């Protein structure tokens, strides 16, 4: 099962689905207005989530290779 791959839809839901709620100026985070902080945070989180999926995929592939040997 590669159910963890569904994590990839999280950035789309978070970044876009959150926009109606994050559409505000305050609080400023790191000097950024909140909406800009929100989308920027999701850019970083997208990278983190894809990294996690990649690591899990690699681990699976290594297991599969070991299984074959």
């Amino acid at each position: 099962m590669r159910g963890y791959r569904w994590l990839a839809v999280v950035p789309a839901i978070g970044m876009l689905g959150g926009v109606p709620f994050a559409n505000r100026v305050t609080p400023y985070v790191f000097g950024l207005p909140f909406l800009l902080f929100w989308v920027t945070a999701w850019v970083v989180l997208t990278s983190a989530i894809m990294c996690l999926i990649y690591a899990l995929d690699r681990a699976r592939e290594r297991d599969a290779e070991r299984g074959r040997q």
Partner: protein
Amino acid sequence: MNPALLLIGVCFVAALALGIRARRGHAMTLEQWSVGGRGFGTIFVFVLMAGEIYTTFTFLGGSGWAYGKGAPAFYILCYGTLAYGMSYFLLPVIWRYANAHALVSQADFFVHKYDSEALGIVVSLVSVAAMIPYLVLQLKGLGIIVSEASAGAITAGQAVWTGSAVLVIYVVTSGVRGSAWTAVLKDIMILAVALMLGTYLPAHVHGGFGAMFAQIDRAHPGFLTLPRTGMSPAWFISTVALTALGFYMWPHTFGSCYTARDENVFRRNAVVMPLYQLVLLFVFFTGFAALLEVPGLSGTAVDLSLLRVTDHAFGPWMLGVVGAAGLLTALVPGSMLLMSACTILSKNVYAKLAWREVPEAQVTWLARALVPAVALVSVVLTLRGGSTLVLLLLAAYNVVTQLFPALILSLPNRPIATRQGAMAGILAGEATVVALTLTGATMGSLFPSWPTVIADLNVGIVAMAVNVVVLFAVSGLTGRRPTARQTAL
């Protein structure tokens, strides 16, 4: 001659010289430009990948929209990020199939998947139709840079002619592709300029990012959030979603995935590339700083904001450096687009439509002969149109995104669409795009009684819906028998 024009001129001559040198050795293909020249070391590859994001569009258009529209500009940060996430799953599938069948172009993929030469020609024409506005965008950028650097001595109209002459000369002298070194030069310059402007202006002129944004919020309430109507959250979400789907439908990005060594290249890119998007933040910062420093630009003039604020804060020498960087961001992608459009017209359209076998030399000759012709068409469109850079790119994306349903439905082992369905869907989608563009329709004008949430949606959704409905209807009517090639994977 003022220092700004001088620097830009020197930069152009340097680019030409590098291009001419490149003819002798390592010529760079459109595919390599996109994928980031794998012949280079790690650092070069990183620089190239970072630079892939920066065309005239992001540089002048991104800052222009931050200046002119405010928060809606943030969409530029979002669509690429989501597209990279999608690429983790999409590109390996495309790569495996293309590799197994030795495919070369984007059109080949459709031809092979649907076993239809006609579909290949349609896809080729669609991609050229999308590349023209993208090219117009680069020409407009060139025109803006030359005209601003000359402090208005050269009018925008003259600058567009100059800019396209420059582009044609560049393409013709540097052979087919131009130089990988020009791309590297461009990426280093653009990265340095974006980071420098985006940190210096807010920090030194306005006392930091927070202080700058607070000042903007006081002077222009509501500017840092999406408006309630118009470019509202509904517009934002639908535009990001549509544009993300179209991201890999460009012939150059699509073709670039063929050249990867293995599938892990795409997976690693999906992890790293979103982070490169962050440099866009500094482009936005520059646009926002310009709003406070050089207020009063409106309409298409917002695209001038980055150059104006540079001139205002640093003077003509720095304007020359930024202009030179801008020249390269227009020249490198512009030459790739121009050459690629001409090659597709010659190789994937003319040679396929001809009754007889067309010799290779004739295809090459025609591609080269088309360069000034396509450039001329683009110049005429540039001079006629009154759109900002961002609006031009959105129009181009509407055209190219129509390829997405036919592509995605061809991927499963048992394809969901038939060749007639794919063809009908693309044609219906494009017809809708043309009709919507010509009439200037919006969701609000099409469905006046519907709530604003729907009225604000990107009108491209209508074309996409027409495309998908026609695709399924025609596929249903023409049966779902997969061809031998399709079941082979």
